[in-house]
């Protein structure tokens, strides 16, 4: 997790004056706190739990598909009415719009220094905050996406149908996978990624691509191709809050959300980018690795880029190889592996969610609060518009023992949900007798991801 704060901290102003003695910059400057390594006991307990879960799952779990789309505890009428109400959406959209305009003002007119809030909003609130709020509440970005609102507003101004599109859209999640991969690269590899010039180009290109995509393909673009909507929608499947097939609000298990996702084009690369990117973030903080990269004669940006791509590729390749073995064990033709890998890719989403919580919990808690200190002065004029200039981030939720517990538990729970989701999917899509044996390769891969995730946390 250290890469992200390191990136944020690189925006610190240069030391004061020539030959200066250590200069103190504004308290807590920019986030640069990483988590302590996971204690060995926590590592062992979590690893054993993951293995036991996998073993029990293979030998004793249900034999018939069990998750039904009628499951879930119905929310009381008034609560559901509030969730469905128009004003809730309007309020959420207006708030998101205000934050967007506020941030754009800082992006265009703000100072190019560590006092500028834009890096915090982009790398902490938008990326990590969206992940946490989606896992809690569902696909929230769909509701508050300011670009979606801008597109709809422009069409309304032009008095044309909100479904206006020039061409049919047919790439599934591929553009989202590409967008997520690019953003991960920007966040973890790109140099100067917190400088104002860089962020202006980044935001400008993203706005241009999104509006162009929406102009050509209509609002479907946001449903499938927008990386942040994909990030929010896929992680939002883990939310306990969801809509049943008949459209009513229910409380349900994350398994129901994940099981409701059907295989589609680009799902495997999207999941590979989500899982591989978070794993790379943890891995790249490893000191031996950092030493190797910085003392290598090759340009470090090249090495990091290649490694990040290798992490993406590794996840995609291992899950596909597991699918090949699965369909062969089930006695089905090799060609079936391509649809099977897409069928079981959703079961990696809980594992990705567990990784995200484990890696970004303390960053979100601490930096998420810290952003308020900078947002109160968007233009660097010394203003305190929100009265949060002196806010001291509360560190109650990032005590080392608590953080280690949250990390170990989220990884293991992610593994448990992944195994259960893969089991349900395997007995649904494979022949019943072959399903038990057919899911074994998937579980091997999941055990590997989980132990890998724990090892990364143990040796950051």
């Amino acid at each position, binding site marked *: 997790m250290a890469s992200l704060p*390191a990136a944020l901290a690189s925006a610190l102003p240069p*030391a004061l004056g020539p030959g200066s003695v250590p200069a103190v910059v504004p308290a807590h400057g920019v986030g640069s*706190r990483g988590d*302590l*390594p996971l204690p060995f006991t926590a590592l062992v307990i979590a690893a054993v739990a993951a293995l036991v879960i996998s073993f029990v799952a293979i030998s004793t779990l249900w034999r018939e598909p069990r998750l039904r789309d009628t499951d879930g505890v119905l929310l009381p009428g008034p609560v559901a009415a509030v969730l469905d109400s128009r004003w809730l959406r309007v309020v959420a959209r207006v708030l998101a719009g205000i934050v967007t305009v506020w941030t754009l003002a800082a992006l265009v007119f703000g100072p190019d220094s560590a006092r500028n809030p834009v890096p915090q909003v982009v790398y902490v609130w938008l990326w990590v905050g969206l992940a946490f709020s989606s896992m809690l509440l569902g696909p929230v970005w769909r509701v508050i996406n300011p670009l979606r609102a801008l597109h709809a507003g422009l069409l309304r101004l032009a008095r044309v149908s909100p479904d206006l599109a020039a061409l049919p859209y047919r790439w599934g999640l591929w553009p989202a996978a590409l967008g997520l991969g690019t953003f991960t690269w920007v966040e973890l590899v790109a140099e100067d990624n917190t400088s104002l010039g860089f962020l202006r180009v980044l935001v400008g290109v993203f706005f241009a691509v999104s509006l162009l995509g929406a102009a050509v393909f209509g609002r479907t673009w946001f449903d499938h191709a927008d990386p942040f909507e994909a990030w929010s929608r896929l992680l939002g499947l883990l939310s306990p809050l969801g809509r049943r097939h008949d459209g009513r609000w229910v409380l349900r298990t994350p398994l129901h959300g994940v099981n409701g996702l059907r295989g589609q084009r680009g799902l495997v690369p999207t999941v590979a980018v989500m899982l591989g990117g978070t794993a790379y973030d943890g891995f790249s903080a490893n000191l031996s690795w950092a030493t190797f990269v910085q003392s290598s004669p090759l340009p470090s940006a090249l090495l990091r880029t290649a490694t990040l791509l290798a992490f993406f590729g590794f996840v995609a390749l291992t899950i596909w190889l597991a699918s090949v073995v699965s369909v062969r064990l089930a006695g089905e033709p090799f060609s079936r592996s391509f649809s099977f890998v897409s069928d079981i890719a959703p079961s990696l989403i809980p594992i990705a969610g567990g990784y995200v919580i484990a890696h970004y919990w303390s960053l979100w808690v601490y930096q998420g609060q810290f952003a308020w200190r900078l947002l109160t002065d968007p233009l660097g004029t010394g203003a305190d518009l929100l009265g949060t200039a002196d806010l001291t981030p509360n560190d109650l939720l990032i005590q080392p023992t608590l953080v280690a517990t949250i990390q170990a538990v989220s990884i293991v729970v992610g593994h448990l949900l992944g195994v259960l989701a893969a089991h349900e999917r395997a007995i649904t899509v494979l022949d019943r007798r072959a399903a038990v044996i057919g899911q074994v390769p998937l579980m091997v891969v999941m055990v*590997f991801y989980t132990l890998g995730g724990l*090892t990364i946390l143990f040796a950051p």
Partner: protein
Amino acid sequence: MRTFRALPYAVCVLALVGAAACSSGTPDPGPGGSTGVVSTGSVKRLEVTVTGTTVTPAPAQVDLPIGSTLELVVTSDHDDELHAHGFDVEATLKAGTPTTLRLTGTEAGLYEVETHEPALTLLTVAVR
């Protein structure tokens, strides 16, 4: 179906072997294991030399109890900026001139100390 019965066991054994391999391949970040750290009371002292892109001693994790101070003496063969994350301390490095940073641990966490030109990680400080 009989042959299949053995598979779950085989999987677990494989995974266990994998786990063992993973953990044994991990460098032990044990307390105080980093070389070059000299302790005097609640003050630790570490001298680091930067030559081009080579950091001596090799980057390692230095444990620092909350309330203790790490005296970090850095000598570089080129002009650079020195930055201790989280301690919010920056200093200018003049080629060949040792620069001392005093880092006092206040909040538990893992903090990087790095230079900017080129970007090198010198060490991490584990405050606990």
